[in-house]
């Protein structure tokens, strides 16, 4: 916890105390920590002199901010129009079934977390899934099981 606090403090000190920086700070914080913890958000509100409700308001308004941790393989299923028409919903359900978690959750071993997004702009390869920054083109529901097995094999040993 202490180390987390000092990380937040260090990050904050590189920004001017201007609310213009709020979203930028939250984004960087999320990049470093994987998510926005309550403690970190409180720290931010204190630093910028904003009420905590305002900071929490921002953190929960935007789709890309998470207030829960993500897994080693953050998995995002695209539900843009083209992907939806090509069966994106079935792909999302297949992940939920195979990982035994719901959208927005993380597996117990913290390896996978699951979310959906509206469009990565890869509509011509629909349906697509993004796992840890890599895009899987034309990933249909029946192929999900194999993808998960391969990813598990790619896990670092420790």
């Amino acid at each position, binding site marked *: 916890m202490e180390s987390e606090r000092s990380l937040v403090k260090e990050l904050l000190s590189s920004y001017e105390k*201007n*609310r*213009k*920086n*709020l*979203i*930028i700070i*939250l*984004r960087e914080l999320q990049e470093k920590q994987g998510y926005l913890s309550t403690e970190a958000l409180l720290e931010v509100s204190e630093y910028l002199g904003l009420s905590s409700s305002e900071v929490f*308001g*921002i953190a929960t*308004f*935007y*789709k*890309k*901010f998470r207030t829960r941790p993500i897994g080693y393989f953050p998995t995002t299923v695209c*539900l*843009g*129009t*083209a992907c*939806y*028409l090509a*069966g994106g919903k*079935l792909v999302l*359900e*297949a992940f939920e*079934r195979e990982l035994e978690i719901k959208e927005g959750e993380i597996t117990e071993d913290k390896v996978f977390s699951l979310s959906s*997004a*509206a*469009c*990565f*702009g*890869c*509509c*011509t*390869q*629909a349906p*697509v899934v993004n796992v840890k*920054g890599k*895009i*899987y*083109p034309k990933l*249909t*529901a*029946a192929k999900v099981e194999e993808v998960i097995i391969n990813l598990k094999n790619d896990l670092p040993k420790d």
Partner: protein
Amino acid sequence: MIYQKIKEEAILEWNELVYSHKPRVLVGTATCGVAVGAEEVIASMELKIQEKNLQVDVIRVGCLGVCYTEPLVIIFKEGNPPIAYGKITPDNAGKLVSKYFIDDDPCFDLALGTLELREDGTGYIPELERMDKEERIVLKLSGLIDPENINHYIAFNGYEALNKALHMERGLLIKEIKDSKLRGLGGAGFPTAIKMEATYKAQETERYIICNADEGDPGAFMDRVVLESCPHQVIEGIVISAYTVGSKNGYIYTRMEYPLAITRLKKAIMQAREKGFLGKNILGSGYDFDLEVVTGAGAFVCGESSALTASIEGRRPMPRVRPPRSTEVGLFGKPTLINNVKTFACIPAIVNQGSKWFASLGTDKSKGTAVFSLAGKVEKPGLVEVVMGTTLREVIYTFGGGVKGDKKLKGVQIGGPSGGCIPAEFIDTPIDFDSLKSLGSMMGSGGLIVLDDNTCMVDIAKYFLFFLKDESCGKCSFCRVGLSQMFFILENISRGEANPEDIDTLYSLAEDVQEGSLCGLGKTAANPILTTIKYFREEYQAHVGEKICPALVCRDLMHYYIIPEKCYRGCEHCVLKCSAKAISTSEKGWKIVDQEKCTKCGNCLEVCPIEYSAVVTKPGKCPINQ
């Protein structure tokens, strides 16, 4: 440095590349190309090049627009015309390198065709019967130059328009844009010159300029491709506009989902600064301007200008009442000019080639070109840039190669969640801002999704509402509550649990939301509902009355069935893949779906070998086991 000198240097570098005896390989590495393995293709080629000790230039370019051919590779070799290769795998990429560069065998079996280059730097592949019919302004150099090398852009008159503009009077520049009749390509089609003039004439001297690259429409990817393929064209357009309205600071507001576009933009801005196209005293003119990339955090409503400025200020993106318009009270309360990526990308061409040329393209009221991202049930998805007034039929059949699998066209969804569904009988409508509006849709940013007979219109309406009800900022009750209520009604319809009067309730609720919302999101949110009910009412009625989904999509109103005569008895694919263990082998050998256990995951349909095609979908709610 003066512009001429910069240009001479750039041309020198370009000529060295083009006239060198070394072969060069262009690989499309926009996000769509990377997704299907462009980086692996490059790695495999470079390995082979190293192994065989060859002298070859491998250049990462943007997207040529023919996305269905990705990963796309174009090879220039002395003595031969440039050849384009489509759907290259890492495996045959290596072979291509050794065969073509060592054995002089161009591997015609892998080739798509030759690339014909025009003098202005544009190019097309005649064999694809598509690109030569396009009119490319925004996508002019996409896929043909290295987006991360500013000299490639300058070599094709890049930043020449900026140099010209800096020596022009501001009023004259505005007049030029006005005469070109350019309208905002972000969707609404507001005349660009009017916005420019208002910002220019505003009282406050501190003014801002924003490029809206928050391409939030699901199903649209034009802005991404432009930013990834030719970021300098957009930057040049922004600087010219900034000079015109007298702004010293600008922002490009980009979606977080586009990491590659952000990287390339930031790099391009740095290069532009080094060359003196940005920063203090631009090209010795005494004019200062700088540009910054701001990344959004995922909110569709940020496409609305007052929400977008709020987001840059670090606030919740809630649209406010207008007037005053952003051109008077915008970012940090100052006059602000906000335009879409493609609008800015048109400006250098207008300054270079003149307003007359631009105004000669298109229809009476919509000038220039429209860029569409063609996706959905279409044979050749990708990007298409055509003159305004081209019909939907041409876009789908000439450029898109028709409906996938030769199915029947049901309609198109155009303009994303703010647009509407246009039925097949209207496909001869010329596409421009006004004609689409009269059909109840809108140009939107240019997402064009082709729908075939297997698309359920209730389902697609439900999809957009699911998206919009989550994206409503919550300020206006009609949008916040109304969209959720509409979604509930649609859910009931798709489950076959709705009453006949629900369709009319839905329609009138949609009209109320349209009326009672403040911003563009709420005002257009009803379009998907209104258009689908207007043009496809019988499909709604089938869900409500007969309780069937004619397209066999709504899962509560369909079921999977295995045709005994087609089911090959030795095959076990569906049994093994069934996620609910609902498929078993009957005494006679074929497979049977236990309808009570079936969760309708669709796996059986997907894995049933195409030569058998024994799994089908059938209408009807929960049939009795046979």
